[in-house]
């Protein structure tokens, strides 16, 4: 039973080795406008996206979310944070967070997603449990597709990370798309 018998069974039953091909990422290369493609895909997946100068960041966020009180700002360019968190914060206490501002490492144009990881937020549940989410992303940090994305994160410190694409959503009730399921109710990407 268990490990030994499973491995033995596989060894007996597996077919002759089929060689692994290498991926030729050039097959998928397209000369696209990264920023425009990224923007249109962020909108496609239900996110908001605003282009502006870094200096205007906090002003814009205050305009978008005028009524928020409990803000966790983990992007150094924002001074709006009212709650500070660390590795020792109890994740359950973040239930009341209205807004989290996180720095995105890079964006993927083909699907409007942003890679964020434990490097950017010390408590894993933060981008999910917050009511609304803002990701600050540099225009320069965009790549075309996931093949390139995986090259970019190949040397990271592997703990926890994700491609985040749009706000949480569901279409489980008669295929009607509802934005805001169990995770963040909205996602705004601020492209600086």
């Amino acid at each position, binding site marked *: 039973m268990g490990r030994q*018998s499973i491995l033995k069974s596989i060894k007996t039953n597996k077919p002759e080795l089929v060689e692994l091909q290498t991926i030729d990422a050039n097959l998928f290369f397209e000369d696209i406008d990264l920023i425009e493609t990224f923007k249109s895909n962020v909108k496609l997946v239900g996110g908001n996206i605003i282009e502006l100068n870094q200096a205007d960041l906090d002003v814009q966020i205050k305009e978008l979310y005028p009524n928020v009180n409990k803000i966790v700002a983990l992007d150094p360019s924002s001074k709006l944070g009212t709650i500070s968190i660390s590795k020792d914060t109890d994740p359950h206490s973040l239930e009341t967070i209205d807004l989290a501002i996180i720095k995105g490492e890079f964006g993927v144009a083909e699907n409007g997603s942003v890679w964020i990881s434990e490097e950017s937020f010390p408590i894993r549940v933060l981008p999910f449990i917050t009511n609304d989410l803002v990701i600050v992303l540099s225009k320069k940090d965009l790549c075309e597709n996931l093949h390139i994305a995986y090259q970019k994160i190949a040397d990271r410190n592997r703990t926890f990370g*994700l491609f985040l694409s749009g706000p949480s959503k569901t279409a489980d009730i008669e295929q009607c798309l509802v934005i805001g399921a169990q995770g963040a109710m909205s996602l705004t990407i601020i492209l600086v």
Partner: protein
Amino acid sequence: MSHSEKAAIFNKDEAKVNWHDKALWFVREKRDTSAHKVKGWEELRNLASGIKANVLSNLDNYLIEFEANAQKNGIKVHWASNAEEHNKIVHKILAKHKAKKVVKSKSMLTEECHLNPYLENEGIEVIDTDLGERIVQLAKEPPSHIVLPAIHKTKEEVDELFQEHLGTTPSNGNPEYLTNEARKHLRDKFLKADAAITGVNFAVAETGGFVVCTNEGNADMGSHLAKVHIACMGIEKIIPKEEHLGVFLRLLARSSTGQPITTYSSHFNKPAEGREMHIVIVDNGRTEQLSREEFRSSLSCIRCGACMNTCPIYRRSGGHSYDATIPGPIGSILSPGMDMKKHSSLPFASTLCGSCSNVCPVKINIHEQLYAWRQVIVKEQKQPIIKKSILKITGAVLARPTLYSFMGKSVRFMLKYAPKFMIYSKLNAWGKARDLPEVKNGNFDQWYKNREKNG
């Protein structure tokens, strides 16, 4: 009951069949639109198919590699030969942590192992947190689709369910209201959970990490709040390298729902400080399927559900007609291998149109495997004597030209001259809703002979 009997019952409500069919065809169309936007889509499918073929031919080594890398990162790895072992292992971990409240995100594997009733029997509350799964959990039904578990439920039915179990006010099935109420209800469950169970979309041998994809964020809400995270995977979910995720994640959501990617593609490599992460690797009949040359590639399945969305029979009969954990085309080639007697009607619930094979992101030749299962089932399962006799006799007739010529004439004579009530009787299933062809004077043989005679 066989698939055809259940399907006939489903078809009594034609309006519902139309609604169900259109809902899923719409998802298929979204898949098409999305796939059209990807340069090299067919090449991507070829790659995915090739990677999976390599995986199946080197599965033991990849699993060993995965285990070593996962353990290095502090993930505890368990192995279960079958459903019972899996359930026991999960329970043991929960019991060790005195976990009484568990939240679970979508895992068809745990569905296959019937984990929920097992744990509930041990006094543990299990809440399925995917909205569609929560709906069917409250309705005490199995999911009818592997990606859209409650596709068979109208919003009015969901409204009534939520009124009863969540205390919502009647809303005529307002999706925003109902989803928001479910959010509040599930938040409460996430915050109080002692442990979280998730599935695994892909496990990477090279890194010992795994990926869980959701739109709702429920897998993450569960696993990052509770102190213990248990991830359950079938042995075939392994892929060799992290870069291969580029191929599979580009294919998965597009094939499934037409989205370019799910909202969250979470990459788990290490447990958070002070927490536990477990992975349970499960066989439960998969190594046996691996031994079947004709059916082995069905293990490549990445559980996207595209075959169900495109299948004209699935759309018109609903997932429950299959009476299998995984329904539809892929379910019909996986299930007979696990219980041939129970699932012997499934490979026949198909016209072999081939649409499923064409949408499959990993190019499983589903329609060919359906044909192949038919040959196996007919030999190994007792067949209805009438069907068997008719077909065997037909075979004998078709092998003998003169006898065939005689039979051809007799059938034509019967069709032409026998009274209508005899032909359109209950025994004649064709004639229930269709007319039989009108028999002409003479067949092609006779016409040709005459033509030759007359020069």
